């Protein structure tokens, strides 16, 4: 199925860069480049297959599980080239979240059952953390799973589940002990989305896309063995994943690609020679450069086998707020075209002036709002007393 594992890390960074670049230019579909918003599975299926055939689905997984086994430096090169060529994300919750988690905390059976189908793209994962009254406050979640023989019976509602309408499976947090204190009594469950009793309702976002869903659970029966880690210990499992997520959410990808878009617009609009623009652009360029540096520091920590500490929250804060500032400057530079939805015509080509701005809005909210991240840093890194 997948090509034989190769030792990418043996290549020099420059050589690896060339390989990656060639791979993208050879295989990635032209019409999918520089997508202004998140792509649905239907658009990305072909590309997923291509990645799968070449063993390129999971750059960061160890090779023994079918990943590329890239060390952090190589992973950064990979991401940089992906951004430079404007390669869109495939639905990647399985690749980024479930895979690393099962490798770290799953059973052999779970790894064998789930990992290969993530690599082939047969199974697409979505996330079930947030609830209407437990957004950034995950410990307040109320969706419950009651053990009934060999099954958990799940009832409740999840929300902000990204592209759940394309998911075949969901990893979710459920309350398995209602008597326990808030963060205890939570379990981590893997759920097949075709199980009877599940209803998915896409929500339209500000930018007009159906990027998130509400998911309703009505007496949904989930096999007992689908639990990851111990029962009632799901908070610890989720926390491990949260620092992965923060690393991922803090990846310079968004900001980097937004900055490229800003450069493009500066050329299209002729603002590239305007000293006021250059001053603002340079400040953002340096912000993105330092974001890259910060990201490399944390990924190196992961690759050195160290656990990520609570300080990884700063990556998410800085990454998303830099992204947001770039979106603001794009709107500013667009002048009158900043009032138009979708592509506007400029002399040198067409440009969507608002997409970055819109995409920046949820980035400071999801994955734990930046307010929650700041609480974490203040309390757990700076040791300031609790409020």
């Amino acid at each position, binding site marked *: 199925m997948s090509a034989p594992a190769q030792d990418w890390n043996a290549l020099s960074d420059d050589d690896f860069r060339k390989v990656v670049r060639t791979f993208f230019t050879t295989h990635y579909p032209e019409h999918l480049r520089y997508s202004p918003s998140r792509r649905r599975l239907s658009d990305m299926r072909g590309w997923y297959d291509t990645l799968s055939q070449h063993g390129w689905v999971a750059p960061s997984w160890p090779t023994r599980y079918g990943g590329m086994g890239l060390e952090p430096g190589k992973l950064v090169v990979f991401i940089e080239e992906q951004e430079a060529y404007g390669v869109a994300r495939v639905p990647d919750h399985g690749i980024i979240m479930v895979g690393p988690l099962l490798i770290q905390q799953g059973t052999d059976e779970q790894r064998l059952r789930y990992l290969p189908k993530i690599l082939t793209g047969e199974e697409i994962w979505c996330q079930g953390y947030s609830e209407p*009254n437990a957004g950034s*406050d995950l410990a307040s979640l109320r969706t419950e799973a009651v053990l009934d023989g060999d099954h958990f019976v799940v009832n409740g509602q999840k*929300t902000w589940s990204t592209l759940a309408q394309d998911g075949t499976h969901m990893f979710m947090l459920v309350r398995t002990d209602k008597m326990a204190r808030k963060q205890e009594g939570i379990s981590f469950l893997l759920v097949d989305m075709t199980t009877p009793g599940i209803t998915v309702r896409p929500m*339209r976002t500000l930018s007009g896309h159906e990027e998130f869903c509400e998911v309703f659970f009505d007496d949904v029966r989930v096999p007992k063995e689908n639990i990851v880690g111990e029962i009632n210990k799901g908070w610890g499992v989720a926390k491990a994943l949260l620092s992965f997520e923060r690393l991922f959410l803090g990846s310079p990808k968004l900001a980097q690609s937004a900055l490229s878009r800003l450069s493009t617009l500066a050329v299209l609009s002729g603002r590239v020679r305007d000293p006021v623009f250059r001053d603002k652009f340079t400040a953002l360029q340096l912000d993105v450069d330092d974001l890259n540096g910060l990201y490399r520091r944390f990924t190196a920590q992961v690759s050195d086998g160290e656990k990520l500490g609570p300080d990884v929250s700063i990556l998410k804060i800085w990454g998303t707020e830099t992204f947001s500032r770039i979106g603001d400057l794009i709107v500013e530079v667009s002048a*009158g*075209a900043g*009032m138009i*939805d979708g592509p506007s015509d400029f002399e040198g080509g067409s440009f969507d002036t608002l997409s970055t701005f819109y995409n920046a809005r949820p980035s400071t*909210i999801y994955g734990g709002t930046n307010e929650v991240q700041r609480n974490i840093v203040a309390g757990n890194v700076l040791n300031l007393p609790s409020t």
Partner: protein
Amino acid sequence: MTKTSDLSERRQQQQLITESAAAFAKRELLPSALRSGSISHTRWQGLAELGLMSLLIPEDAGGLGLKIGDLVPALEQLGKPLLREPFIASAVLAGVVLAGSGTPKSASLLESLAEGVLIPAVAWQESYDLAGDHTSTKLSKENGGQNLSGRKILVTPGDEVDGFIVAASGAGVTTLVWVAANAEGVKVETRRAADGGEAATVHFENVAVTDDDVLSVDGAALLDEAQQLATIAVCAELLGLIRGAIDMTMDYLRTRKQFNRTIGSFQALQHRATDLFIQQELSAVAISRAVADFEMATDSRTRAIAASRAKARLSSAALIVTKEAIQMHGGIGYTDEHDIGLYLKRALTLSAWLGNAAEHRARFARLTLGEAA
């Protein structure tokens, strides 16, 4: 004593207008109307019945002859629940041009406007930049008649529009002519604006223009005055929008619970809420100053400074406030299901239209500090 009683008379009149606008807003307007995307002719008619269409029109042109300061509080009321209809584009920008024109054609258009049965647009812009070149559209004499050719962009409103006041270069001057939307040679491509309304790119290809259609042979000054008035009027709508967004957000902060607490009790949010309130109050005083300066102005430079002063503040404040409003609402604020997002979309549209904050700051600098090196 005359001065004081004039003032209080004016204040009473303003209050009357404001109250009727507020009543109309309460009765007829809902932010969610932006989702439908289309202009309501009933609401348009309603605005006309309030007398708002002819408020700025001089008495000798059949209007009420009031000043921008009299309109501002009413526009604030209409802006708060996000008036979707193109009042400023059609009644202020186009209306003031028509009133200043003084031809039989403009008189009849003005009458239709006052009755709420006409939706005109001014087509002046050719570059996205306020300070860009907007003079490529040409009016040329040919075969005894006149011919209009060129392309205008960001024409607002771009849908349901009955005709355009087009700014064209004639014999070394800017001439303003009326072109019906259905005239031969006119092609309208609409572009969806952030707020769901439509702006248009309008192509004019050898459109025949009769002498009757010429609203002003040398119309640059008239157009300029109308633009500055419209810019201040947009600021008033934005101030209403800012108040609306802040009210909605403070309500949310007072009721939404997370971590077992009302989120409005979190000090970090409280301090940021205060900063939004400051933006609102600065916006209010910026408009007051601009209105006062505009009403006293006797030259176009002073009028432009007044307009830029207000728009620089309001375009910026509206975006600061509505972005923070989304953040404070959290996830729900990013869905299209909650109205707070409509405030952001409307803010994006009105902030960019007629020049964004950076453009107006630059113009203010140019006018107050002189040209840069």
